[in-house]
C-alpha cells in the first residue's frame, strides 16, 4: 500500500468516526450528559481559547504541561542514555540494575504521588521528578538493548581496523545504537506526556491535567473532553515531530 493511500485512509477514518459521533449525538440516541456532541466540544474549545479557564488562557495551560514534560523528559534522557549505554556495554552493570528497572516500570505513576509529596513536597520538583523517573525507566532499557544488539562482527571489524576502546565507543557503539536510542526517545516522550496529567494532580494551578481535574470536580464535562482531546492531539504532534527527526538522523535504520 502506498504512502498516499495510507494517509488517505487514516484521514478518512477520522472523519467517518466524527460523522458517526455527530449522528449519535444529534439524534439524541445517547444522553448529552454521557456523550457530548462534537459540536458542543468545538464551541467549548473556542470559548476556552477566547476566555481561558479559571483566569488562565488555554494556551498557557497547554504550555505549562508541555514545559513540565520537556524538562522532565530532558532530565530523564540525560541520565537514561549514559546509564543505558553503560548497561549495554557491561553485562555486570546490567545484571545489577535491570531488576530495579523491571520492578519499577510496571508501577503506575499515580501510586508514587503520595510518596513524591511526602519526600519532595507539592512544588514543581515533585511533578518534574515523576516525569523524568518514568521516562528514564523506559529509555534506559531501549538504549541498553541498542548496545546489546550491535553485531559482534561490526565490533570486531572496528577493532581489527585499529579502533581503541574510546574510538570504538564514540565511532561505533554510539552511532550503532542510535536507532534504538531513538525508539527510547519516542517511548520516553510519549510516557512523559501521558504522565503529566498524573503529575499535575499534585496541587497544580496550571496545565491540562489541572484543567481536567478541576473541570471534573465542578462537573464541567465538555471542558474535560476538550482537555482530553488536547492531550491526545498534542501527544500525536510530539510523536510525529520526533519521528520525522528520527527519519533524518538515523536514516540507515530499518532498511
Amino acid at each position, binding site marked *: 500500500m502506498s504512502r498516499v493511500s495510507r494517509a488517505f485512509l487514516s484521514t478518512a477514518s477520522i472523519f467517518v468516526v466524527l460523522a458517526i459521533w455527530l449522528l449519535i449525538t444529534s439524534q439524541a440516541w445517547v444522553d448529552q450528559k454521557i456523550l457530548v456532541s462534537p459540536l458542543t466540544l468545538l464551541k467549548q474549545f473556542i470559548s476556552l481559547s477566547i476566555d481561558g479557564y479559571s483566569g488562565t488562557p488555554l494556551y498557557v495551560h497547554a504550555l505549562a504541561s508541555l514545559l513540565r514534560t520537556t524538562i522532565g523528559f530532558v532530565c530523564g534522557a540525560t541520565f537514561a542514555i549514559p546509564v543505558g549505554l553503560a548497561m549495554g556495554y557491561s553485562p555486570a552493570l546490567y545484571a545489577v540494575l535491570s531488576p530495579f528497572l523491571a520492578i519499577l516500570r510496571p508501577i503506575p505513576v499515580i501510586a508514587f504521588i503520595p510518596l513524591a509529596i511526602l519526600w519532595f513536597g507539592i512544588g514543581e520538583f515533585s511533578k518534574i521528578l515523576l516525569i523524568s523517573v518514568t521516562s528514564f525507566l523506559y529509555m534506559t532499557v531501549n538504549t541498553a538493548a541498542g548496545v546489546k544488539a550491535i553485531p559482534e562482527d*561490526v565490533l*570486531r*571489524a572496528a*577493532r*581489527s*581496523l585499529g*579502533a581503541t576502546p574510546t574510538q570504538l565507543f564514540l565511532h561505533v557503539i554510539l*552511532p*550503532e545504537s542510535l536507532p534504538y536510542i531513538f525508539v527510547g526517545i519516542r517511548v520516553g516522550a510519549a510516557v512523559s506526556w501521558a504522565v503529566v496529567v498524573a503529575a499535575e494532580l499534585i496541587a497544580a494551578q496550571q496545565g491540562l491535567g489541572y484543567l481536567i481535574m478541576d473541570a471534573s470536580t465542578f462537573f464541567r464535562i465538555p471542558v474535560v473532553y476538550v482537555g482530553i482531546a488536547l492531550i491526545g492531539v498534542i501527544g500525536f504532534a510530539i510523536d510525529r515531530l520526533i519521528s520525522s527527526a528520527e527519519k533524518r538522523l538515523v*536514516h540507515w535504520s530499518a532498511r
Partner: protein
Amino acid sequence: MKDSGETSRIEIVDLTHTYVRGRSQVAAFKKLSLSIQQGEFVSIVGPSGCGKTTLLFSIAGFIQPTSGRILVDGELISGPGPNRGVVFQSFALFNWLTVRQNVEFGLQMAGVPPKGRRPRSDELLGMVGLTRFADRYPYELSGGMKQRTAISRALATNPDILLMDEPFAALDTQSREILQEELVRIWDLTRKTVVFVTHSIDEAIYLSTRVVVFTARPGKIKYVTSINLPAPRYDPHVRTSPEFVTIKDSVLDLVREETIKQFAEEALT
C-alpha cells in the same frame, strides 16, 4: 625477527581451542600447526563446524586460543590489529557511514586527517569499481557492492595479511563468481598474504596457491595441497580445465569423507 626471511608470515604452533557447549567441552581444533608464507593465498575447507572460522578469528586476534601460539612475522599476537585486515561473511559494514567513510575508517582511527585519507580511498574505490558509489550508504548497495566496500576497507590501512571468512557465501552465484575474479586481480595487484575460509571447494581451488582440508571436529589438518595451476588465474575458464577438475575430484572426496564423519559425530552427541 622481523623480515629475517627465516620465519613464515603466519606461524601456527600446536593450537588448541575448546569451548563449553551445554555441559560438555567441545574441541574446535586440537594441536594444530600450520605455516603460511609471505604472498601465499591459502584456503581452508572442511565440513561445517570443523573450526575453520575459529582458526581464522584466532589469527585475527578476536578469539584467545586455549593453548598453543600464533606468530605473525615472528611476534606473538595478543589481539586484533591493523596489520591483519578482516573480511566477514556478514560484511560488517558501518551502516551510518558512506562507502567512502567506511573505506577510510581505519585511516581515521589511525589519526590520518581527511585530506590524507582521500587519495587512498579514491585509489581503492577505483580498484573495486565503486567510485560512482562513494557517497552512497551501505543500505543502498547490492551484496556484491557491500563486500567490495568491505574488502577496500580491509585493505585501506595496507595490512600485510588479509583474513577472509566465507566472504562470498552470502552472495548469489553470479556475483560470487565475479567477486572471485576480482579477488584474483586484487591479490595480483597487492600481493597480500591471504587466508581464506570457504565451504566451496571450487572457490578454494580457483583462488588459492594452497588448499588446506580440515577434518571433522576436533579439526585437524587432513590434507594440504598446492594448486599447481599458474596463478593468478585471470581466466575464469580454468575452472573447467581437466587439471582443475582432477584437483577438485580429489579434494571433494576428502571433504565428503570428513563431512560424513561430522554428521555421525553430531548424531551421537
